[in-house]
């Protein structure tokens, strides 16, 4: 009897505690999802419903016209491919170049470490919108206009500071003994980075990768300026070129549709990769 009661009370306290998590998870979902759901709904609404008073929440008339218009008028799939190519290349490049640098700055006691870090910080502070005039001239000189490189390199550079600083902070948190063990085992610096250090900092790698990828995917001004050829355009630029019935009309429907379509690949990517953001990768590695 008394045991039963005890179990009951313990159960009860547990329930309250257990509620906090789902509730906050739901709140998060609602907070982040609400405006997006609104966009998604908009993308299926007919124009009249988009700007109806009172607001139409759940559209009665569903239309795919906005989506169809995307693909009918423009090679939308090509834009997605362009975006994907540019984003993937710059993300990979960024990680490939930034991670070793981060490692060197975390562990190799470079005499110039402080200077490099300061430089990276300063570079971060330079507003990216204002970079592009100078870049425009570089692109002009190097004749890189309408070349994927004109996007890949700036994207890489813009995301490098984040990659370097984030990865560095994670490298610094790793137990140093592991690298020592690897050195004794005969790993050279590169093998060690690749086979020992990186697997343990995979969450950081994935995180910076996701952030880099997204920022490259969504970049607008460079893409608009440096890629004037139709076949090279990226999603955000192509979306901005959607048009309404008049100069003044903002094409909410197609914009919403393009937003949804252009973000889908990112959603899939994140869904796949967020699994790798896991705890305890260094569990059991060292004692003390």
């Amino acid at each position, binding site marked *: 009897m008394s045991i039963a009661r005890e179990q009951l009370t313990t159960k009860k306290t547990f329930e309250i505690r257990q509620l906090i998590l789902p509730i906050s998870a739901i709140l998060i979902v609602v907070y982040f999802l609400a405006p997006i759901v609104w966009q998604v709904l908009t993308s299926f609404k007919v124009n009249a419903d988009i700007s109806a008073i009172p607001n139409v929440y759940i559209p009665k008339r569903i239309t795919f016209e906005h989506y169809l218009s995307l693909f009918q008028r423009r090679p939308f799939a090509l834009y997605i491919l362009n975006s994907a190519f540019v984003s993937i290349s710059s993300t990979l490049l960024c990680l490939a170049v930034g991670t070793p640098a981060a490692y060197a700055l975390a562990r190799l006691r470079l005499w110039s470490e402080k200077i490099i870090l300061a430089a990276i910080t300063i570079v971060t502070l330079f507003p990216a919108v204002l970079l592009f*005039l100078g870049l425009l001239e570089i692109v*002009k000189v190097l004749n890189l206009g309408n070349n994927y490189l004109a996007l890949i390199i700036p994207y890489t550079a813009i995301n490098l500071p984040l990659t370097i600083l984030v990865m560095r902070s994670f490298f610094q948190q790793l137990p140093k003994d592991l690298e020592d063990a690897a050195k004794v085992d005969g790993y050279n610096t590169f093998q060690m980075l690749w086979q020992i250090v990186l697997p343990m900092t995979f969450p950081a790698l994935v995180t910076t990768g996701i952030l880099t990828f997204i920022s490259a995917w969504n970049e607008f001004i460079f893409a*608009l300026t440096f890629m*004037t050829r139709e076949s090279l355009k990226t999603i955000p630029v192509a979306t*901005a070129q959607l*048009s309404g019935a008049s*100069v*003044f009309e*903002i*094409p909410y429907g197609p914009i919403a549709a393009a937003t949804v379509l252009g973000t889908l690949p990112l959603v899939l990517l994140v869904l796949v990769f967020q699994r790798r953001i896991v705890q305890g990768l260094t569990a059991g590695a060292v004692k003390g």
Partner: protein
Amino acid sequence: ALTQQPVVLTMLMQGQDIANWKPFVKEFEQKNPNIRIDLIEGPFDTNLVENLYTSAFLLGESPYDIINMDIVWVPKFAAAGWVRDLTDNISPEQLSKFIPGNVEGGRYRGKLYRIPHASDAGMLYYRKDILKQAGIAAPKTFEDMVKISQNLQKQGKATWGYLWQGKQYEGVSAMFVEVLSGFGGFWANPQTFEVGLDKPEAIKAVEFLKNTIASGISPPGVTTYGEEETRLLFQNGKALFLRNWPYVWKLANAEGSKVRGKIAIEPMLSSIGKTGGSCLGGWGWGIAKTSKHPEQAWKAIQYLTSEETQRKFILETGLVPSYKSLFTNKEIVAKYPHYPQLLKVVEQPALRPPIAQYAQASDILQRYLSSAFTGRMSAEQAMKSAASETRNLLGSLKQPKAS
């Protein structure tokens, strides 16, 4: 040359324009097999288009040969030396067939840089059904309109009286130019650089607009509205009067619109005893300075801006012509009965000052108008500041800084 490669001209256009122009471009290409025109789709936001041109020109070799210019860009593009002087390409007789304001808008310091292919002018839309029902004639002055609105609002015939664009953006300048001229004021003189923004007329103009909000004729939201927001509100049947551009006509009369067939237009109003004016917008074509094929480009412009082309184009699209004669063309009037009325509107132009620093001047005005509308400043304060900043700007223009 045995097989002549066709010359390729590139042209940036916004999405909706491309659809409209494609057939005519095709036609041109058929007639001129050695010229091809590449239509590039630009962003839907005109600001972005302007930026795109700017960066393209700054890059040096413009990727575009034919430049589609909004009226307010001309001085800047001309001053920066990005577009060709077309003064000698076209005869005065030919020019005189266009709406004069539209041609004026293509000039900078006496030279012509742009041939207009469409007009745009601010005008007043109103609900003729409600007015008729109440037995009221269309208003001619601001004062009339206020009275009518208040009356009908009180009777519950309409939620709002007057809709105008009060958001801080280029549209507010365009809107204000009209009210300003309706009150007999002016903004700035492009020749003498005189600034009229702190004159009593200008202050009155601002106060009039502020009052429409204060007295409930206009929704408080007008301070955030652009063309579309006001159109939608009007189209949803919520208001009596709307200041907007010609494009509204077609949409408001389209199927599904709540005001289909219930509207009419008037030229912009004025205060009692003054003559009002419409802000003239409109697009036209120029040729990039760096274009390698100026002759072919001119040929294309000639073709596309010919009266015949425009006639067909207008019939097709319902846009507003730049030729005077087309407003009264039978065929066109048959399809768009309100065009003769439109002609009155566009012939009563209130121009935004064609100065190179127009963008900057307009920004100054926008900010202070917005300050006044949102109650941050009184009309007088706002206009004084705007005037003084504008004077500074134009002053610096008179004597370019030198080392």
